[in-house]
């Protein structure tokens, strides 16, 4: 393997990793508040099509990104309405959101298929830093969304562990009644977490159509939303570990498309199974450890909360 193709692989790993990380971080925030949202794939698709269409109209990639995040958040709030306000089953609602998102994005983007992109997010120019061997091309000539993902991860870690809002949000995922009794609004915390998750999934989708492959095709998300859901478990609901997992899974995605150029005779289908196999492995470890201490999964994950009344 040549040095150039190795650098290309690592650079793509970072790029794909950031794509996965944005969506996974959103899901992590939502799950920390106790809401399982299996609609990530759908939210990404909606974000992707919104980003592309708005870029066509406005020819401004930043406006397109903001629009994708906004629409992603609003779309996620459908899930919020069903699960938080009505107390509906979260798995059913989340799966519906995925199906709805995939369908709606295909419908909206019908006429945009094959059109050239209106605007792209250009790679950030770090000046002399980009010229550093290895690190330059891998770390310092990436899409702005890569750096956005890093900042979002740091911000999420800070808010979750160092602020009272974060404490309450984590509490809502552990024991909603306790947080309610302590005077916080569980509804507001959970809706906020869901909307944030939707915005990040929207950004992840827009990354696809504004930066990675600047065009619209139906099904552009290609199951990456599901990898993001798995990534949250793989990262044991911690932003830092999820980042490591994102790089690993991103590397696998990058490798998949390069297998043949490397002359390796391995089915890419086998490779795309690896993230899920790893996630199952982590689940087993978590479950075994949970015999002696609370599981790292939020205790109230997936449970609707209604104030108890006699």
């Amino acid at each position, binding site marked *: 393997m040549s040095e150039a193709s190795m650098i290309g692989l690592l650079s793509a790993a970072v790029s794909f990793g950031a794509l996965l990380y944005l969506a996974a971080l959103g899901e992590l925030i939502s799950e920390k508040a106790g809401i399982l949202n299996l609609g990530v794939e759908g939210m990404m698709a909606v974000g992707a099509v919104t980003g592309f269409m708005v870029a066509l109209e406005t020819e401004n990639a930043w406006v397109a990104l903001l629009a994708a995040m906004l629409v992603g958040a609003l779309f996620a709030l459908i899930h919020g309405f069903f699960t938080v306000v009505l107390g509906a089953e979260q798995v059913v609602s989340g799966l519906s959101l995925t199906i709805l998102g995939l369908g709606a994005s295909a419908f909206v983007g019908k006429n945009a298929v094959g059109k050239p992109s209106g605007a792209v997010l250009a790679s950030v120019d770090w000046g002399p830093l980009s010229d550093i061997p290895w690190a330059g091309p891998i770390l310092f000539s990436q899409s702005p969304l890569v750096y956005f993902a890093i900042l979002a991860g740091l911000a999420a870690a800070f808010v979750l562990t*160092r602020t*009272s809002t974060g*404490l309450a949000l984590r*509490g809502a995922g*552990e024991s909603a009644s306790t947080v309610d009794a302590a005077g916080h609004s569980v509804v507001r915390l959970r809706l906020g977490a869901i909307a944030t998750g939707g915005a990040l999934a929207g950004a992840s989708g827009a990354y696809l159509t504004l930066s990675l492959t600047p065009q619209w095709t139906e099904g552009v998300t290609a199951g990456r939303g599901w990898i993001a859901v798995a990534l949250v478990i793989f990262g044991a609901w911690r932003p830092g570990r999820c980042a490591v997992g994102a790089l690993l899974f991103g590397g696998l995605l990058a490798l998949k498309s390069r297998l043949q150029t490397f002359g390796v005779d391995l089915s890419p289908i086998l490779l795309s199974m690896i993230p899920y196999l790893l996630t199952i492995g982590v689940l087993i470890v978590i479950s075994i450890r949970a015999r002696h201490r609370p599981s790292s999964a939020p205790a109230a994950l997936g449970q609707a909360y209604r104030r108890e009344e006699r």
Partner: protein
Amino acid sequence: MITLLDMSSPTPPAVNLVDVWKRFPGVVANAGATLSVTEGTIHAVLGENGAGKSTLMNVLSGMYRPDSGEIQIKGQQFWFRSPADALAAGIGMVHQEFRLIPSFTVAENVVLGASERILRRSSIEAQVGDVANEFGLKIDPTRPVWQLSMGERQRVEILKSLWRNAQILILDEPTAVLTPSEANELGTVLREMANSGRSIIFISHKLHEVKEFCDEATVLRGGETVAASLLVKDTDTVKLAGLMVGSSPSTISRPTPQSQGTPLLTVSGIGALDDRFLPAIQDLNLTVHGGEIVGIAGVSGNGQREIAQVIAGLRPVTSGKIIINGEDLTNALPVERFRAGLGYVPEDRLGVGLAPRLNIIENAILRNYRNLRQGPLLAEERMRTYCEDIINRFGVRSGLLGDPIAGLSGGNLQRLLVGRELSGNPKVLVAAQPTRGLDVKGVKAIQDLLVAERSDGVAILLISEDLDELLTLSDRLLVMHEGMIVGEFDPTTAKRHDIGAAMAGEVAT
């Protein structure tokens, strides 16, 4: 009403509840209850289950809005719309079931909902530690709650109230989850808090703790205050027990006595642990003969729940033997006991007794579905007939048989449950609190069923908190205290005073 408190004292009471009424559908939980707590004292609120203690405390802590009545805190009138309002007025409540997040640290649990926007871990831990030290609460603020004992968790709950500067602290049966030494420690901490000017309301069943820890006591019965602010040092546990159980006239006539049959249920030397793995029953012996009702009385939480579960096979024994209808079934499965002729009416009607989401037919056959099969499938027609038989025989008033039972009234649920247990023609019946929470008609129906089974020669063990019920139904009355049988009485001649003393653990001679 007995009032010993000097009403002319110049400082207004810390808490003054006047003529509180609270009705729920079909139940009057508080019927003119009053409570007056002097500032800086520990005040016991006593009463049997269903006496209205919890409702009254929920009114005071803002959980329920009373239908009528006044809440005065330090002489000032309040009208609470939510627990947050009560909290703002300085009232903190430590619930029986702790509201803590196991994966959070002590400090995180304490500051949840009451802290600066940005949390600095070390400074918060230090502050929480300071508050704990001030009142002698031994706790490490940095430890996660899941590692703590129940006693330590309770300290965290108390700490939460102190952190929010509660001046009035309500503890709902605080010692129910504690070991005796932890309970003593709690008593010291509460005294410390009272000395610092806070007022403590201590809800309890355990009379000796009231005697030990509390300054004043208010006794509730049937939603009313029957004794207000008794000075604890001027009273004794026997008198308090008497006030709790009361002496209302009996409602049904005694069944005619009949000669005893053979022993059908023999429990010898039984020991068992409670949910916290502390001894709940020690070396317990009892025998129930065919054709008699043996009643078990006692202040709740003295092992009655556990002995019923042990006999039903829902709780393992640590020692001893259980013989049902001549068979040693000490370690047998519940289904084997059912086949041997044991019927069980559990305390938790919905949940252990009946499955709320299943329909009436499914609930009716839960015990006996193995006999209602056609090959590997359930025989629909026979299921329906079996269920209709129970419904007709025991007068269950139901809607459609295919509807979930959740729609049935409490009385009909209990008839269905008792009917199902009796449909197997048991030799032995264990009934735990079979009439609790039922209306007068429902109580009568269940009591009549028990008496009829007794006449048919069934051996019945009746566990109840209603002393009147026990006195009218039982042929023999046993009193449990701290997991042991401490007295046996003949219900026709026994004096309530003596039974009350035995319930308080003071064995009468």
